[in-house]
Structure formats: C-alpha cells, structure tokens
C-alpha cells in the first residue's frame, strides 16, 4: 500500500518568506507527527496530531511555526517569515492510534537563503 508522502521534496526560499509543507499519511492512521532534522543533529519533535487535534505542540520552536490537519488526513506545516536556522529536513510520520511504530515519509528539505 501507499506509504507516507510529503511535498515538495525540496524547497528553497528566501529569508522572510512563508512556506507550506504538506504531508499525506498512510490511510487509516489517526496519529500524525512532524519532526525536523537539522544538519548533523537527530530528529527533533515538532508537533503531534491525534485525529485533527494537536494535543502536543510542545516542540514548535516559535510562533512562526503552525500546523493543521483536516479530515484526519492531510497535514500542513507552515513556517512564516522563514529564517536561515529553519533550514532542515522536515519529516512527517503517521501511526495507528494505539501503536508506537511510526512510519516516516521521505521528508522535505528546506533551504532558507
């Protein structure tokens, strides 16, 4: 079956611009997660959705970051007024409600110039 997909695969943007990153989870997975991986670092948790609600937003680094999920499906991560330190690979994962195994998409590589 189809795995987690993310778009775009690569995004280059100028500092100060807004970007939107999209995640399509595995069909039927009710939990959806966003992580990011900056160069040379591990994966950093950003936000988690259960259904369309986000019970844990603790990882969002600033109020420039926001995310939403609709129809218990697609999620969008928005970064406003991008900064160079936002450059990273943004990874989305989904899992069954009760499961721990998170299945990851290929990521979106964001470069802020």
């Amino acid at each position, binding site marked *: 079956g189809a795995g*987690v997909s993310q778009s775009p695969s690569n995004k280059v943007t100028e500092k100060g611009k807004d970007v939107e990153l999209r995640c399509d989870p595995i069909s039927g997975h009710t*939990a959806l*997660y966003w*992580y990011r991986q900056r160069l*040379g*670092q*591990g*994966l*950093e*948790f950003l936000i*988690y959705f*259960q259904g369309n609600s986000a019970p*844990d937003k603790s*990882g969002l680094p600033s109020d420039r970051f926001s995310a939403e999920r609709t129809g218990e499906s697609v999620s969008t991560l928005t970064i406003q007024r991008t900064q160079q330190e936002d450059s990273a690979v943004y*990874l989305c*994962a989904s*899992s*069954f*409600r*009760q*499961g*721990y*195994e*998170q*299945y*990851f*998409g*290929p*990521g979106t590589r964001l470069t802020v110039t």
Partner: protein
Amino acid sequence: DQQVKQNSPSLSVQEGRISILNCDYTNSMFDYFLWYKKYPAEGPTFLISISSIKDKNEDGRFTVFLNKSAKHLSLHIVPSQPGDSAVYFCAASKGTGTASKLTFGTGTRLQVTL
C-alpha cells in the same frame, strides 16, 4: 538537554561480523524504545522495538537489549550485511498504550565493509 544519546557517530564492521550499536537515555519515564534505520534521502524506517517490561527482543538478524538499571540499550545485527549500511537512530517514548512523540538520538552511521 539530550535525553537520548548515541555517543558513537560512526561504526565500521566487516561483512558477516556482529554490529553493536549503543544508546543511552537519561529520562527514567521512557518506557518504550525503538530503532530506526535511515538511508540517504529517505525517511527513517522502523526496525525493531522493545518495551521496558522486557530486556530482549529479537527479530531475525536484529536483537535489541535493554538494561533499565543502566539506562542503556543496544542493537545487535548478526551477521552484518552490506545492505545494513545506513544511519541508525535510537528513539524513546513514554506513555504506554498511546501513540506519543519520539525522542531521538543523533544517530550512528554504520558501514559494513566487504
């Protein structure tokens, strides 16, 4: 504050030998541990997991060992194969029975040589 640590950034092992990847954690509330494998330009792929009520879990060539008193876990791959060359991430979560956020280590790059 790095709650999950992988102190070896890289490891090189000969094909056929055992690969041992190590991971330490500091948060005693973690009760579920996972290993993920990542190839370049791909997302991490789930490999194997272990609950804190166990000390060993085995799946084919992969075995994960958990030492709760030492807050240490390890992944053994035997025999190692060239296709195992990848970055391996250790991850931990807390809150049994619910999908919860994972805290990842920084990864260990494994190279299996011929």
